[in-house]
């Protein structure tokens, strides 16, 4: 079990996430012709075993997911998850395709992979940079399936800490929700909290 983070730690974490998402928005805007806005309506923390209680209620629906594993100072994985409708809407907005076209699926994988990659990179990249903790990263991977299967770390069991970052994309007049799951292996969320605490120490001293 993780130790409950202090308000200070949570505030810093939220700040890091917001900075990261802001960077992602900047990167996306440099790249795309249409203006894109990114917001973080909420950030929640829970144990992996409570994933089912996630109010998003993905249930058994098939979701689109861009995944990336990281290790080094912190071990775990990051995933950007879209319900299929949202994924299609976002890709349609970014590529100018018709959201009702079935062939959208084909262009979805590549586009989502890149967008997810930018967003995840910005968030964990920012955490690593600001805390001066280097990571190694696996290559990003686009998968579709049930949320529980996609995120399941296997042997690690349920004793993982999940940081759920809800994000809202606004492209033109469309609004699309996506969720970033940062899943920390045992002990590594605490390590992150310690790093944040260390960051705070000099200021408070």
């Amino acid at each position, binding site marked *: 079990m993780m130790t409950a983070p202090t308000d200070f730690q949570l505030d810093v974490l939220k700040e890091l996430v917001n900075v990261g998402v802001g960077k992602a928005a*900047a990167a996306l805007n*440099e790249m795309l012709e249409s203006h894109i806005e990114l917001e973080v309506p909420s950030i929640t923390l829970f144990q992996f075993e409570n994933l089912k209680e996630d109010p998003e209620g993905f249930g058994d629906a098939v979701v689109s997911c861009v995944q990336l594993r990281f290790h080094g100072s912190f071990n775990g994985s990051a995933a950007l998850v879209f319900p299929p409708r949202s994924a299609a809407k976002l890709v349609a907005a970014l590529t100018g395709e018709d959201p009702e076209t079935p*062939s959208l699926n084909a262009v979805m994988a590549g586009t989502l992979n890149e967008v997810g990659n930018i967003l995840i990179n910005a968030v964990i990249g920012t955490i690593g940079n600001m805390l001066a903790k280097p990571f190694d990263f696996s290559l990003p991977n686009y998968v579709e399936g049930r949320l529980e299967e996609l995120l399941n770390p296997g042997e690690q069991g349920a004793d993982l800490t999940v940081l759920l970052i809800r994000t809202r994309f606004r492209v033109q007049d469309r609004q699309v929700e996506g969720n970033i799951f940062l899943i920390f292996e045992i002990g590594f969320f605490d390590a992150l909290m310690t790093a944040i605490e260390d960051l705070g120490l000099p200021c408070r001293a």
Partner: protein
Amino acid sequence: MNDFDQAAHRFAILDHAPIGQFILRKDFVTLFWNRCLEAWTGIPREKIVGSCILGHFPHLGTAKYASRIAGIFGGGPPTVFSSQLHKYVIPAPLPGGKQRFQYTVVTAVPAPAGESCYAMFAIQDVTSLTEAIENHRCALQQVLTEMEERKKAQAELLANAEELKKLNLILEERSIRDGLTGLFNHRHFYDVLHRDFLLASRNGQDIACLLLDLDYFKQVNDSYGHPCGDFVLKEVAALVRRSVRETDVVARYGGEEFAVLLPDTNLEGARVIAEQVRSVIETHLFCFGPATLNISASIGLATRLSHRLSHPPDLLAWADRALYRAKGDGRNRLVYLPPAEAGISRLPAAGTS
């Protein structure tokens, strides 16, 4: 060893990969350029290694590439340039002149000295995949278009069928009506008589039939012309229709002959109605232009039960005999022939008006 020799040695294995690969230093100087890229771009390694890549491919200096590549030099996570959002990172024309679609992943690889990393580009040619998707999309579009057309054709067919149905109804209606008076025609009357007679037989009910012939009608035509005759026929049709009940069937039976079928009506009831019809015609003033005409009608009456009949045509035959008698007895009257007189009655000859 300088960076270039080191890189040539360290990354030599990338020459064997069937994907385009090159290595950039933090200052965007190219350290390595694999054989695959030589083949794709036509730029030999000697021309590009050691020089800034922006001299060859300036677009990589634009924000949308540069800022993300910069993250890699800092040791950031791998970055993806998809073919959907970028088409290609390093332009590499195919024999036909089209550019290869590329899926590119840039990863950080540790530099031998110093803090910053090298950026390793791995470029997959996804042209065939993209084309497959494009073909698939075209095929799909074609199918969708065809489906749309088929749907339209079907809708048209349906509309036509609907129109046809309406026309059929009109035709059917016309085929059972007399064009001049709007009453049922002879044929339809016969059908209804047949049906209602059998129905009455089964239910043990009576059914009556009137045959009505206008007296001296030929003179109307001769004196006032056919338009006047037609006018009289129409007026009589309306008069008869108004004098009987909703359930009674009125038909124009022949030239100036009308037939009325009175279901579930016995002899007494039929007499009352028939007499009413006769007197209504007699008292009506037919005004055609300046002319005012008086018309009368002879009516023959028969009923199923009073004649103990079991065949529909017999009812008509009895009514016809009665009509013949009415003509013979001086016209403008209603005649019922009791069955006792069957023996002495003969079938009426035609054309006795």
